[in-house]
C-alpha cells in the first residue's frame, strides 16, 4: 500500500493504492441500488480491474419502505488481480438509509468507510429501521470512517432548475451517491454517462437529470473536504482481449445460443418462470432473430415435456428452472433418459427445501439431480463454477447431450446466476463445432433400428420427416435395437446396463480433473459450483502464505472424471466446502470410500473466503483428518 499525492482543483488529497476493494451499495428496494452497483461494476471492469459481484435483494416484491426486510444490496470486489468472489469484508459501505446501515455494518471491516445519506436519518426512517436513536450519533459507527453526505439535499440542489418535482428529483439520489464513489475510487464516469444517454434516449429530461446528478456527486467529492483520502486500485493483468460483464444467467443464455450455432441447430427453450432462473428465459426470448424459440409453458412438467418433443423433432432443446421446478420435472426427465434424446436442463439452485428462501443461494439440489428419478435412471450432471463458466459449461452440456443422446443437468446457483464478472469474449470461429449426425438411411439390412448404438453406445438421432426411418419411442422398456416395447426380462437388464454404461462413457469426453497447487500432500480442497470462487481464493491465499494446499473444482459430477479417485489418494485430507449439509461429500464417500472433511453452511449466503481459509488453517494446524 503506497501513498502518493494527487492534485485536484481545490484540495490536495492523498491517494492510497489498494490491491483490492470491496464495496457495498445498500438502500431501500426502491432506491436503485442494483442499478448503481451494476454501473460501478462496469466502470471498474472497463477501467481494467477484475470484478466480482453479488446482488442481494429482498424476497418480497416490495417490503415496507425503509424497513430492514426491504434493504436491497449490491456488493462487489474490484481488484488489481484475479478475483473469484464478491469479497468477505466490506471496505466501503454506501448506505442510503438507516436500515441499510443496520443490515450492512456488521460486514464492514474495522476501519472501513461508511458513507451515509445524512438526510435520510430522520425520525421516521430511524424508526422504520428499528433504531431508537440515530446510530450516527452514538458509538454504533465508532471504529469506522463515517462520511455523512447530504445526498438528498445535494441531489435536489443539482436539479433545482430543472422543474422536476421533489419525488422525481429524489429518484436520482442513487446517481449522486455513485458520483461520489466514482470520485473516491477514481473511476471513469464516461461508461455510465454513455449508458444514461442510451437508456433514457426517450426521456431526455431524465437523462439530463441523472447526468447532472452523477457529475454533481463526483464534483462534490472533488470539492468538499469530507474525504481525506482517495483510493486507487490498479488495473489487473488480465489476458488481452475484448471483455464484457456477464452474470451466470446471461452467460447461460448466450451459451445456449452459441451451442445451437455450433451445432447448426435451432434452439428451443421451454421453461416456466421461477426465481432465480427466469432471466435465462427473458434473455433468450429477446433474440428471435437468432430463430430462438422460447416457449413459456403452463408449468415445469409441460416445459420439460415440450423440450422432449422438440428434441425428438430435431431442435437443440433446453430448459431452465430451480429446485421446485426440477422436482416437478423428475418424471419427464426420466422419460428423456429412457427415449435417449439430447436435452439440457439448467437448474439454478436456490435456498430450499420447499419454497424455502427463493432469492437466496444454496447448493442443495445435487442429490436430487443425481437421484431424483424413479427406477435406475442415471443421467449426466454437471456444475458451473462462476458466472462466465456458465457459458462454457452450457456449451459442454449441449455437446455431451448430443454426443451421448441424453439429458444433461447443469447446476448453477443464485450466487453465480445473478453475480457478474468480466468475461473475455471468445472468438466464435475458434470454438469447436458440435457434431450432429442425423441419419438419412436405414442402419441395418432389416431396416432402421432406432436403438442400434455406436461406439459411445449412443443411438441414432433420426428425425421425423426423414423417409425410411420411421420409428416409435416411448417410456415402456424398449427392445434392444428395435425399440419396440419389450417385457422380456433379459432385455430389461441389458437395456438398463447399456444405458448406465453409456452415461459412464461420458467420462471419456470430459477429460481429466485439474488440480491447482501441490499435486500431493496434506490437503486438497474440493469444490463444485458457485462456491468455487471462494475456494479458489481461499486456497490461493493459503498458498501465498506458504501453506501446502491444493484445490480441485469439479465440473463433472456424474460421471466423475476418470482420474478423480487417483487424485484423492494423493492427499491426506480432503476438505469439501458446500452450501448444503454435505451432498458432494456423501457422493464421494459412496463412490470413492473417502472420508472427507465437510465445511457446510446453509444460511442462504455464499461462503466468505475467510471461512474456508480458517478451516484450511484449522485442518493444517491439527495436522490431519477430522470429521
Amino acid at each position, binding site marked *: 500500500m503506497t501513498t502518493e499525492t494527487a492534485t485536484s482543483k481545490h484540495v490536495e488529497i492523498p491517494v492510497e493504492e489498494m490491491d483490492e476493494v470491496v464495496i457495498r451499495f445498500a438502500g431501500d428496494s426502491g432506491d436503485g441500488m442494483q442499478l448503481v452497483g451494476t454501473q460501478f461494476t462496469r466502470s471498474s*471492469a*472497463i477501467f481494467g480491474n477484475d470484478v466480482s459481484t453479488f446482488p442481494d435483494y429482498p424476497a418480497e416484491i416490495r417490503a415496507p419502505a425503509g424497513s430492514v426486510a426491504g434493504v436491497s444490496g449490491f456488493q462487489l470486489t474490484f481488484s488489481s488481480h484475479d478475483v473469484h468472489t464478491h469479497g468477505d469484508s466490506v471496505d466501503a459501505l454506501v448506505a442510503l438509509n438507516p436500515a441499510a446501515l443496520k443490515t450492512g455494518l456488521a460486514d464492514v471491516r474495522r476501519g472501513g468507510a461508511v458513507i451515509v445519506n445524512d438526510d435520510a436519518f430522520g425520525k421516521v426512517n430511524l424508526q422504520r429501521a428499528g433504531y431508537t436513536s440515530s446510530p450516527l450519533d452514538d458509538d454504533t459507527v465508532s471504529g469506522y470512517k463515517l462520511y455523512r453526505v447530504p445526498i438528498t439535499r445535494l441531489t435536489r440542489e443539482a436539479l433545482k432548475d430543472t422543474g422536476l418535482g421533489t419525488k422525481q428529483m429524489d429518484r436520482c439520489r442513487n446517481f449522486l451517491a455513485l458520483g461520489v464513489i466514482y470520485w473516491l475510487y477514481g473511476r471513469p464516469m464516461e*461508461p455510465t454517462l454513455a449508458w444514461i444517454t442510451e437508456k433514457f434516449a426517450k426521456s431526455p429530461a431524465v437523462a439530463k437529470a441523472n447526468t447532472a446528478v452523477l457529475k454533481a456527486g463526483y464534483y462534490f467529492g472533488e470539492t468538499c473536504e469530507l474525504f481525506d483520502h482517495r483510493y486507487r486500485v490498479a488495473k489487473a*493483468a*488480465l*489476458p*488481452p482481449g*475484448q*471483455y*464484457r*460483464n456477464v452474470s451466470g444467467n446471461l452467460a447461460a443464455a*448466450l451459451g445456449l*445460443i452459441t451451442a445451437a*450455432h455450433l451445432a447448426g441447430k435451432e434452439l*428451443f427453450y421451454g421453461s416456466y418462470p421461477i426465481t432465480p432462473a427466469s432471466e435465462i428465459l427473458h434473455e433468450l426470448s429477446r*433474440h*428471435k*432473430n*437468432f*430463430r430462438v*424459440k422460447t*416457449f413459456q*409453458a*403452463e408449468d415445469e*412438467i*409441460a416445459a*420439460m*415435456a*415440450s423440450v*422432449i*418433443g*422438440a*428434441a*425428438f*423433432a430435431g*431442435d437443440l*432443446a433446453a430448459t431452465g428452472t430451480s429446485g421446485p421446478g426440477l422436482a416437478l420435472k423428475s*418424471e*419427464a426427465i426420466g*422419460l428423456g433418459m429412457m427415449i435417449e434424446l439430447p436435452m439440457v436442463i439448467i437448474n439454478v439452485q436456490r435456498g430450499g427445501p420447499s419454497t424455502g428462501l427463493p432469492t437466496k443461494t444454496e447448493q442443495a439440489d445435487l442429490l436430487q439431480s443425481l437421484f431424483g428419478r424413479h427406477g435406475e435412471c442415471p443421467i449426466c450432471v454437471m456444475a458451473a463454477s462462476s458466472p462466465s463458466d456458465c457459458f462454457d459449461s452450457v456449451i459442454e452440456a449441449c455437446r455431451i447431450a448430443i454426443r451421448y443422446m441424453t439429458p444433461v443437468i447443469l447446476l448453477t446457483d443464485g450466487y453465480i446466476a445473478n453475480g457478474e464478472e468480466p468475461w*473475455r*469474449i471468445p*472468438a*466464435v470461429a475458434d470454438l469447436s463445432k458440435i457434431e450432429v449426425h442425423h441419419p438419412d438411411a*436405414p442402419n441395418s439390412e432389416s431396416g*432402421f433400428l432406432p436403438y442400434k448404438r455406436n461406439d459411445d453406445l449412443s443411438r441414432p438421432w433420426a*428425425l*421425423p*420427416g*426423414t*423417409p425410411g426411418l*420411421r*420409428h*416409435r*419411442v*416411448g*417410456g*415402456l422398456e424398449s427392445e434392444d435395437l428395435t425399440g*419396440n*416395447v419389450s417385457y422380456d426380462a433379459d432385455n430389461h437388464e441389458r437395456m438398463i446396463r447399456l444405458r448406465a454404461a453409456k452415461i459412464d462413457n461420458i467420462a471419456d469426453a470430459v477429460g481429466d480433473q485439474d488440480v491447482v497447487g501441490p499435486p500431493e500432500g496434506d490437503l486438497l480442497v474440493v469444490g463444485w459450483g458457485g462456491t468455487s470462487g471462494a475456494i479458489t481464493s481461499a486456497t490461493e491465499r493459503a498458498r501465498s502464505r506458504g501453506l501446502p494446499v491444493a484445490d480441485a473444482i469439479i465440473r463433472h459430477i456424474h460421471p466423475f472424471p476418470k482420474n478423480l479417485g487417483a487424485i484423492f489418494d494423493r492427499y491426506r485430507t480432503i476438505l469439501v466446502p458446500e452450501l448444503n449439509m454435505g451432498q458432494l461429500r456423501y457422493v464421494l464417500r459412496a463412490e470413492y470410500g473417502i472420508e472427507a472433511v465437510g465445511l457446510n453452511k446453509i444460511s442462504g449466503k455464499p461462503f466468505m473466503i475467510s471461512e474456508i481459509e480458517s478451516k484450511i488453517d484449522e485442518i493444517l494446524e491439527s495436522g490431519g483428518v477430522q470429521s
Partner: protein
Amino acid sequence: MSDPLPGLKAKDYASNQEVRWCPGCGDYSILTQVRKVFAELHLPRQQIVCVSGIGCSSRFPYYLETYGFHGIHGRALPIATGVKVANPELSVWVVTGDGDGLSIGGNHLIHAIRRNLDINILLFNNRIYGLTKGQTSPTSELGKRTKSTPWGSTENPIHPLAIAIGAEATFVARSLDVNTKHLAATLHRAAEHLGSSFIEIYQDCHVFNHGAFSYASDKDQRDDSVIYLEHGRPLIFGKNRDKGIRLNGLNPEVVKLGNGISEDDLLFHDERAREPSLAYLLSRMTVPEFPEPMGVFRCADAPRYETEMQNQMADAVDRMGPGNVQELLSSGGTWVVEAP
C-alpha cells in the same frame, strides 16, 4: 420400411406391431379409420408424428407406420407442442384418453387448445380408466360404481367439449368409434382445420365399461339419442327425422315437426358462429333429455402459436438481420484489455 409412394393404402400406415387391445375394444375401429384417413389425405408417412400419453388408447402410436411417441401419463400435449414448434411442417396427431387428457393432463389440454397449435387431438372417451383396470374417470357418471368408487362416484363429471370450448377451442367435434363413416369424415375435417382440432370420440371399453355408449350405437336407440350437426342446416333427428331442436330463449328443447312446427323454427347449426355460445349450448345437450350432437360443433379461425412464432422470428430477422453470434457475444458494453 420403404419411402412413401403415391397411392398409399390404409394398411401401409399399419406398423409391424401386433395390436393388443381387448377383443371388442372400440379402439380398433378408431385405428382403422385413422389409417384410412391418413391414406385418403395422402399424408406422407414420414411427415406424421403421433404422440400419446399413457392408457389403452395411448398405445395408438405403436400401431401406426409413422413417427410415433408414446409419452408419459397426461403429457402427450406438451410433447406434441415441442414437436410442432420445433418443426411446424410435421402433421401432429395426439391420442389421449379421458383420464390421460382430462384428469392428469387436463391443464395441458386447456393450454394446448388455447395456443391453437395446428395439431389434431383425439380424445378417446370411454368414461373409465381402461389400462389400470376400471377406476372412475372425470367423465364417469355421478353415482357410477367402479373399482375406486364401489359406493358410487361422488364427482360431477366434466364434459370434454365444454372444457375445450371454455378453453377457446377453434375446432370442436364429436364422433363415435363404431360410426365409421362419420368418424372418418370428422377426422378429415380435423385434419383440414388450421389450428388445434379437438375431437371427442365415444369409445366402448369392452371390458370395464361396456355399453356406456350403447344409446349412441345401438340400432334401436341411436336415432333418438344422437343428432348429427350439419353446418347451415336445422337440427333434426329421429328415425323418421321428425324431431328437431328448437331454441326457447337460451334453452334448447326437443320438438316434434309438424303441427305448425316447421324446419324453419328449428335451431340452425352454424359452425362458424362469431361466438362459441352455440357450440357451448350444444355441448350441454345430453341423453336422456336430449339427443347428443355428433359432428363439428365449431370451426373458427384464430392465430396459431407455431405460426405466430415463426412470423415473429421472420419479422425479427427482417428487422434486425439474421442473428450473428459473435456480435451478440460482443454486445452489451464491452472493453478491450490490451496485451501488456
